[in-house]
């Protein structure tokens, strides 16, 4: 018998005697935020980011978002999502960066790993936990939010949702065809040594969010 058949057979045999409490499933957990007005999502998102140690920059216009992004990048080597997945104002502003500052996404990985700032948009932002959701796809590369020591994420007002459930519902058409979805909540951290909080173990040790209108 092959392994599959044998394991399934063992499972069926075990289930005949298995004592598994029969309890009616309670409804999925709901959050009071789900029924709250959207300006409360914004306030909660900001509060959660602060608690996580994320630098939050709230901007009132697309142009201000673009300026803020460029200021955060400064003169550092940049690994960014392709223009098509960034807000047009940001893409236009990045085009003015000195030649060579923005790395070519087609470059070998060793070159990408030298980036000092990673720049992405997001596919959703979760107010309840201050989390960012990024789909992994050909126009949404994984390394900008992973390799550089600083990750700058651009969040538009329309990206905000109250909870993870709401985010998954919002993305339900995009998800099945995506290879992966990543939820990011704050900077990379560990507490493995004597429970001491240490930032930036493997992923970015600093995370900045530029929140647009």
């Amino acid at each position, binding site marked *: 018998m092959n392994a599959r058949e044998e394991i399934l057979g063992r499972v069926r045999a*075990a289930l005949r005697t298995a004592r598994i*409490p029969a309890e009616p499933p309670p409804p999925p*957990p709901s959050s009071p935020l789900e029924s709250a007005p959207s300006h409360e999502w914004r306030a909660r998102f900001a509060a959660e980011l602060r608690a996580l140690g994320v630098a939050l920059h709230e901007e009132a216009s697309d142009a201000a978002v673009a300026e803020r992004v460029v200021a955060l990048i400064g003169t550092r080597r940049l690994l960014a999502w392709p223009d098509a997945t960034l807000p047009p104002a940001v893409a236009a502003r990045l085009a003015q960066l000195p030649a060579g500052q923005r790395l070519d*996404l087609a470059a070998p990985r060793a070159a990408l790993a030298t980036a000092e700032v990673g720049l992405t948009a997001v596919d959703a932002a979760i107010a309840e936990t201050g989390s960012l959701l990024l789909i992994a796809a050909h126009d949404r*590369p994984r390394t900008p939010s992973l390799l550089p020591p600083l990750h700058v994420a651009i969040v538009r007002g329309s990206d905000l949702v109250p909870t993870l459930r709401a985010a998954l519902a919002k993305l339900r058409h995009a998800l099945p065809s995506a290879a992966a*979805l990543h939820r990011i909540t704050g900077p990379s951290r560990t507490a493995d*040594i004597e429970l*001491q909080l240490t930032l*930036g173990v*493997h992923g970015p040790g600093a995370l900045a969010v530029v929140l647009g209108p």
Partner: protein
Amino acid sequence: MSDSLFRARVRAALADETLHVALGRATAQLQARRATAFASLQDPAAVRARARAGKLAALRTLDLQLEEFERRLVANGITVHWARDAEEACATIVAIATSRGCRRAVKGKSMASEEIELNAALEAAGVEVVESDLGEYVVQLDRDRPSHIILPILHRTREQVGRIFERELGVDWTPDPAALARIARERLRERFLAADLGITGANFGVVETGTLCIVSNEGNVRMSSSLPRVHVALLGIDKLVPTQDDLDAALQVLARSATGQQSTVYVSLVNGPRRRADATPPEEGPDEVHVVLLDHGRTRTLAGETAEMLACIRCGACLNACPVFQQVGGHAYGSIYPGPMGSVLTPTMRGLADHAELPQASSLCGACKEACPVGIDLPRLLLALRRATVAEQPIAPTLRLALRAWAFVMARPRLLRLLRRVARVVAPHLARRGWLRRAPGLLSGWTAHRDLPLPAAQSFDEWWATRR
């Protein structure tokens, strides 16, 4: 594992003062963080109940759930393998590596891979493998074993970690956790960029979507599942949850119970290999994703009384809450699953005969049940295993005699009162500092492991008589 080995480890752990102090501090801190994190939920009980319900629902029809999960994984482009035991799982993963010419593997933290001793198998086949979780990296450098399922080096001080880095990596000694993390980041970054195989566990498998859910705080799991061209995820057949809503609830309780966070920093939902290798620039992500579904004794746990144990989400809360774990630490249990959860998992998965001591290593105080986010009745399961031990193994003739004598006395109140009077006179002569450490005759078996208090000056029935 023999009885004497177990006892020797416990004795050694109890004698280690540093370990005691470190364990006591850490477990207290972890428990406080957990309590705070749950307080941020509007209705913690409801979320826990939903998380439990999801796991139990998957177990109740586990055969059908596994078949459906497999169908969904395959539809997502993932290759599915089944492994009856450790040997088969290791052989499967080694075959994936060698047939694809993979020589350099990076690993995310995976208790299942510890269970099957995967690293040794890969290295024997010429595949270099490096642990990328900071704690597991230290364990690997030190050729040690993890002592906690969430915090592998809970038994190490920062000074000791500094010594290990100094010895194994040739860096200057430092006890600063931030500096140590920086060294690990640099060393492991090279390995990530060069790796052609990424190996991870998975915290959950979502049946309805055929998705793997893998969490980490460091980012090493994202690297392991994103950078190498082949990704292998090893998961026990007990890891399933039926729906995304079940996953949502499970994630909320896991982060809170394990580390006192609202959310783990990185949650990777893996649906399959990269979709557009042909795009310019090509999509990032692995070309192949493999899932290895592991039994290795889980179907034994599923049978009978202990089935509920498979609802465990490996959060470690019962370890931190357990007064025995707080005293002896993880290594004393002699299994990679320590504490209350391990005392049920190890004997059921690996056989009661060799691990009969573990279900005894509990005071049945109930702290674990209270802590468990999915409400597993650990004391009940430990008792069931004790019953099974007694049914399987004949009890020692002296113990049988002692129990008979006890029953005889207990059924005869006058005799009991007489013996009590004798004990009150005799016991103080045998006691040291108020405790009986070495009792005579049939009681000596008891005091070999536990101290006896002196008989009370007034017994309950005497006190009761004066009240009426």
